[in-house]
């Protein structure tokens, strides 16, 4: 069901929509003022849980629950931190950037509420280096908020200092992984850390830290302004604790690629046809990648398998994957992941082997190299797919590809490994016939296309 919202997007495209004036004219900073002057920290985390905000960074972990992992009391005299993840580098993801550029005050206000809720006095916002305009807008918003006294020693008159610092990376996808991001923030190589300890125990600079995606934080003021329970109920998946609204993206082979704010519950078919204007050239769909390149591709013919009658997901049993509400748990039972909630559409006519080569080139390039299965596996996957396209491979080698991908699973420090292996295995399994045609020489690289008309 399509239910449009404009909590975050109402400022988009307006002249100076990113300014404090514009933000306050629409009721901005009321939530933060109320939280700081009327609520205790415990009340804030309890309320936050009711919003059922599932992390917007990819894994979909409940935000309020994560907040409650923070120690009740900071270790004597030590700071605790909020770290906001705006690395936005997952291929196919184009939503956080729009918030930073068009509505940066929602991020600032979200940081104020979140800091108070988790017991932190400082928020770090980690923005990938390429997003210069986004960073400029964030710094400007922080400055405006400071001048108003919403940040600093006494935000809204409350003796609870809050400061925000924007930090930047250096062009690596892996710095989006939360512990790599923390290393990068500390001025080190962005290599993921072994867990435990988890960031809530020892995060930035060794201190308890909550890591949240930028959109997760930006929607917090809306939830508190509406009342978190009411916010959650906007969603068609409220009963599954997947609440509220979020930014949905649609890109690739659609007529009108875009980012749009919708209540949770829109289906992929609605996103592609009603929002995205349909598939390029009115073609059929070859496949959809639901939320960034690390989420396994779905065929338009697949259906949901949830035979257990006791499961709350049983109501989707047998439903086509394009017709279920796009949510964290519905995509999981579809055998993929909601990820970053930006859908990439590939039309019939696209060569899936070439698409996989493109993605494997990405993963080979971005592996940080700490774990042998990931470093070697990602390079091997790329090499063999290239050989297949060039007609230099064999059926044995094609069969081996699955094993190479599988050997990465579960043998690595961070989830990058799975994020490489799972989409690789999905391409191999779902488009097996296409791969075979190249191996048998029935198709050559010259036939392979990624664009359609």
């Amino acid at each position, binding site marked *: 069901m399509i239910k449009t919202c404009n909590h975050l997007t109402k400022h988009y495209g307006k002249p100076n929509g990113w300014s404090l004036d514009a933000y306050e004219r629409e009721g901005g900073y009321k939530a933060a003022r109320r939280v700081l002057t009327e609520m205790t920290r415990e009340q804030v985390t309890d309320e936050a849980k009711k919003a059922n905000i599932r992390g917007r960074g990819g894994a979909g972990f409940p935000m309020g629950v994560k907040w409650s992992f923070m120690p009740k009391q900071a270790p004597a005299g030590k700071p605790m931190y909020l770290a906001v993840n705006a690395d936005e580098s997952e291929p196919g993801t184009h939503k956080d950037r729009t918030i930073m550029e068009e509505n940066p005050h929602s991020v600032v206000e979200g940081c104020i509420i979140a800091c108070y809720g988790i017991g932190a006095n400082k928020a770090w916002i980690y923005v990938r280096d390429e997003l210069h305009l986004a960073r400029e807008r964030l710094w400007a918003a922080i400055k405006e908020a400071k001048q108003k006294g919403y940040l600093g020693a006494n935000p809204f008159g409350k003796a609870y200092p809050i400061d925000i610092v924007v930090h930047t990376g*250096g062009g690596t996808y892996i710095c989006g992984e939360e512990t790599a991001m923390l290393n990068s923030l500390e001025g080190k190589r962005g290599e993921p850390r072994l867990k435990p300890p988890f960031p809530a125990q020892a995060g930035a600079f060794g201190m308890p830290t909550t890591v949240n995606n930028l959109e997760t934080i930006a929607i917090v003021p809306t939830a508190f302004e509406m009342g978190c329970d009411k916010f959650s109920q906007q969603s068609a998946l409220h009963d599954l604790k997947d609440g509220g609204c979020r930014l949905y993206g649609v890109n690739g082979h659609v007529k009108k690629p875009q980012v749009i704010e919708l209540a949770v519950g829109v289906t992929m078919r609605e996103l592609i046809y009603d929002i995205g204007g349909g598939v390029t050239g009115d073609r059929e769909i070859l496949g959809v990648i639901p939320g960034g390149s690390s989420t396994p591709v779905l065929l338009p013919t697949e259906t949901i398998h949830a035979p257990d009658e006791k499961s709350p997901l049983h109501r989707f049993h047998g439903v086509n994957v394009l017709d279920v509400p796009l949510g964290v748990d519905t995509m999981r039972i579809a055998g993929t992941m909601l990820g970053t909630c930006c859908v990439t559409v590939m039309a019939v006519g696209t060569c899936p082997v070439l698409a996989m080569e493109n993605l494997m080139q990405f993963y080979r390039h971005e592996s940080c190299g700490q774990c042998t299965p990931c470093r070697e596996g990602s390079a091997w996957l790329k090499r063999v797919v290239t050989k297949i396209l060039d007609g230099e491979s064999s059926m044995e080698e094609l069969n081996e590809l699955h094993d190479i991908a599988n050997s990465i699973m579960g043998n690595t420090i961070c989830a990058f490994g799975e994020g490489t292996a799972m989409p690789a295995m999905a391409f191999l399994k779902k488009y097996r016939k296409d791969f075979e045609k190249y191996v048998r020489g029935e198709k050559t690289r010259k036939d392979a296309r*990624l664009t359609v008309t």
Partner: protein
Amino acid sequence: MPFALSADRERELTEILSRYPTKMAATLPALHLMQEQEGWVSEEMMIWLAHKLDVSPAHVRGVVTFYPLFNQEPVGKHQVWVCRTLPCALRGAGDVIKHCEKKLGVHVGHTTKDGKITLRTAECLASCGTAPMMQVDKEYHENLTTERIDQILEKLQRD
């Protein structure tokens, strides 16, 4: 001449250092500041920064080699990055790259003879909804057409 930051940037570095609980944390922002001035990061600059932040030159070198946006050798006056990743490729990034190579007379990864433009490919730049796209220095150019690309590149060539 030994490396030094301009007075403005030196002040900015002092301000940057005040943001963090450790000096080491200023490594990345400082490197960006230095590269903005020089266009790249030399061995001498790394040693300069190591002294400044009380860290080892090996630490700074480790950071510079990890992050691809730090240039370890001089590059052109302008940086052109064309996004090559799947969502952009589905919307014609491949042709954009070919067109840029032809127009500039260089292959990806190289700098034009006059030293003006370095052409490179980038991985997804969070702009897939407005693909194909490229980044020129600090600016994004989205929904590219051949005419737009020509205008953008010709302006750089004239500069």
